[in-house]
């Protein structure tokens, strides 16, 4: 039995609408000016003002499957989810959905800060499509799950952000839809909360309901899904068992070897004033390469522009294995001296460069994620899968034995052998 059937789905956006980078509203004046300027062309110009967010995507999801959806920012994942949850209409194609679609991207939608926890549960439940009787039946369970018993009659504007998030999640999680859509919940909330989300997701999956899981976190995708689809520039390019799809995703798209550039439409509007430009891996001789030698060391450089001064900015990288396990996280202002010197970073064009020492990484493929944020103030930009590169270990310690060494690092440790007698 199929839960979802997607056939030739396409979605076109006019440039300048919500999904693209420049978010603005028409005013009548703009329309009039446009019209006065080009009276012969009519009110609407030809096709070049449109972008395709999805192009002829087709796939089925059998009932009870947990399907992963992977793709870069701007590949069409959110558009696909929005169409599935009927927020927006497709331009072409059809979708057949069997059952109620609930989604964890709706967490807290319609919450009103002036209303109490109790009132918001009822309001939010109704917004998510629950019947009043259904909410009443699950009320105690929701409150218990959110752990807000004591504050249930307090306006939610007095809640801590953790409590707020827990309550919002609790309502959404108790919707019990036949099809659950999870979009990057791992990006919000603390570790505890994320664990709860993932726990709830696997519960749902075990009850035989259908789950669509979108994430940049490859280890979560690998852990929770058996099969995944890969979207690339609005097209479905691969459907395979998860491990294979993840490999495909990580090795594709990096066609410009050793370098990742960001196009304007890949940068979310919320990133402003931070504009990521490029991320590069250079070898010991300064060449941009896809494979570095572990004995040589390497340089990771992140080029970006600030369109306005930013206070407390830190720009950094995550290094992960291809399986999504973190190796380390490092920021350019980790050094207190540098942090002080760059307390406010003026507008301009920048390059933050990190030197990876020789004999650091083991052989294999690694993924670099980037992050630009002001601690506890705002995250401007994050791409957990910005670029991947290979590490070649010729000449590294222990290579005289042709064996696989476990672990992501391969340090050259100083060994001393003493004979005790």
């Amino acid at each position, binding site marked *: 039995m199929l839960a979802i059937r997607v056939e030739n789905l396409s979605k076109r956006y006019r440039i300048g609408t919500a999904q693209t980078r420049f978010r603005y*509203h028409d005013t009548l004046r703009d*329309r009039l000016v446009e019209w006065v300027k080009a009276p012969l062309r009519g009110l609407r110009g030809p096709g070049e003002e449109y972008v395709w967010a999805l192009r002829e995507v087709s796939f089925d999801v059998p009932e009870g499957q947990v399907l992963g959806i992977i793709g870069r920012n701007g590949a069409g994942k959110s558009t696909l989810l929005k169409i599935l949850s009927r*927020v*927006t*209409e497709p331009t072409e194609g059809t979708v*057949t959905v069997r059952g109620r*679609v609930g989604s964890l991207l709706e967490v807290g939608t*319609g919450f009103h800060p*002036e209303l109490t926890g109790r*009132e918001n549960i009822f309001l939010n439940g109704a917004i998510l499509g629950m019947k009043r009787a259904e909410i009443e039946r699950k009320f105690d369970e929701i409150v218990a799950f959110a752990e807000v018993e004591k504050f249930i009659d307090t306006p939610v504007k007095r809640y801590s952000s953790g409590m707020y998030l827990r309550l919002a999640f609790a309502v959404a999680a108790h919707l019990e839809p036949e099809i659950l859509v999870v979009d990057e919940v791992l990006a919000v909330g603390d570790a505890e909360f994320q664990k709860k989300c993932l726990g709830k997701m696997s519960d749902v999956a075990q009850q035989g309901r259908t789950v669509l899981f979108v994430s940049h976190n490859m280890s979560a995708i690998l852990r929770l899904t058996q099969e995944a689809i890969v979207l690339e520039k609005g097209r479905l390019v691969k459907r395979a068992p998860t491990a294979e799809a993840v490999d495909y995703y990580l090795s594709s798209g990096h066609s410009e070897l050793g370098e990742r550039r960001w196009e304007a439409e890949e940068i979310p509007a919320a990133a402003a004033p931070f504009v990521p430009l490029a991320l590069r891996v250079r070898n010991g001789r300064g060449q941009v390469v896809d494979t570095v030698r572990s004995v040589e060391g390497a340089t990771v450089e992140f080029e970006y522009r600030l369109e306005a001064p930013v206070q407390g900015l830190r720009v950094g990288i995550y290094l992960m294995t291809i399986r999504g396990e973190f190796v380390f996280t490092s920021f350019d202002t980790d050094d207190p001296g540098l942090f002080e010197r760059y307390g406010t970073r003026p507008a301009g064009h920048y390059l933050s460069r990190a030197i990876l020492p020789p004999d650091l990484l083991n052989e294999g493929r690694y993924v670099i994620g980037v992050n630009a944020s002001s601690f506890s103030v705002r995250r401007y930009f994050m791409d957990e899968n910005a670029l991947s590169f290979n590490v070649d270990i010729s000449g590294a310690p222990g290579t005289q034995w042709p064996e696989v060494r476990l672990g992501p690092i391969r340090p050259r440790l100083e060994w001393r052998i003493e004979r005790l007698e």
Partner: protein
Amino acid sequence: MSSEPITVYIRPSRGLRALNLRDLWIYRELIYFLVWRDLKVRYKQTLLGASWAILQPLITMLVFDFIFGRVGKVPTEGLPYPLFSFAGLLPWGLFSTALNQGSRSLVSNQNMITKIYFPRLVLPLAAILAGLVDFAIAFLILIGLMIYYGVTPAAAFWTLPFFILLALITALGVALWLSALNVRYRDVNHALPFLTQLWLFLTPIAYSSSLISERWRLIYALNPMAGVVNGFRWALFGVGEGPGIGLWMAVFVALGLLISGLFYFRAMERMFADLI
């Protein structure tokens, strides 16, 4: 526990769309909760709370009484001026609140629109219905005034709900047009106060419609609110223009606004989430 799950077909819609009132019925509880939210929130952090619903028409009435009643000496079909103007201000308050809240309802709930599916008609509908509570509160003042002036209600008192409905239909019809336009052109936000004010002067609230000369009567009657206000005075006090051609025109225009508004709204609905 659950019966056979429903199957939903998602496909692009073309041309005029069916109104799909069935969907609206399924989501009737959401309308209720949104009305309830609006009421709770509206007065939660105000000092005077619900007395705002009384103060607004009351103070306007006092100002009108001074300017038009005492200084201007506007004819009032034999009624005390405060009673005369309040009977107009009452449905006007209902209409203007409904029109303004309804027209802004989509933009002010944009996070719901971009994240969740529900029939979008729910939003202007809920915004308009929320105005009824203020109306009911202000109605108590009218009763108080009638007792004070010793005026007994006319025999046609029972027709009042019809005129209330007419005011709501007019507000909804215009709000459907404006709320959908507002998604695309935020000019609506700027135009609304101006439109409301203009409309107020075109409605016989401070003055009597008997002042309008015969040859303009029919054009004047194209404003459904003229029909509502005249109807209120007729139903309450038995004075002025009763049901006639003017009222029929009001009903006709109001229904025209409602039906065209519904279809325009439905046609634009598919683009709300992309444009807002």
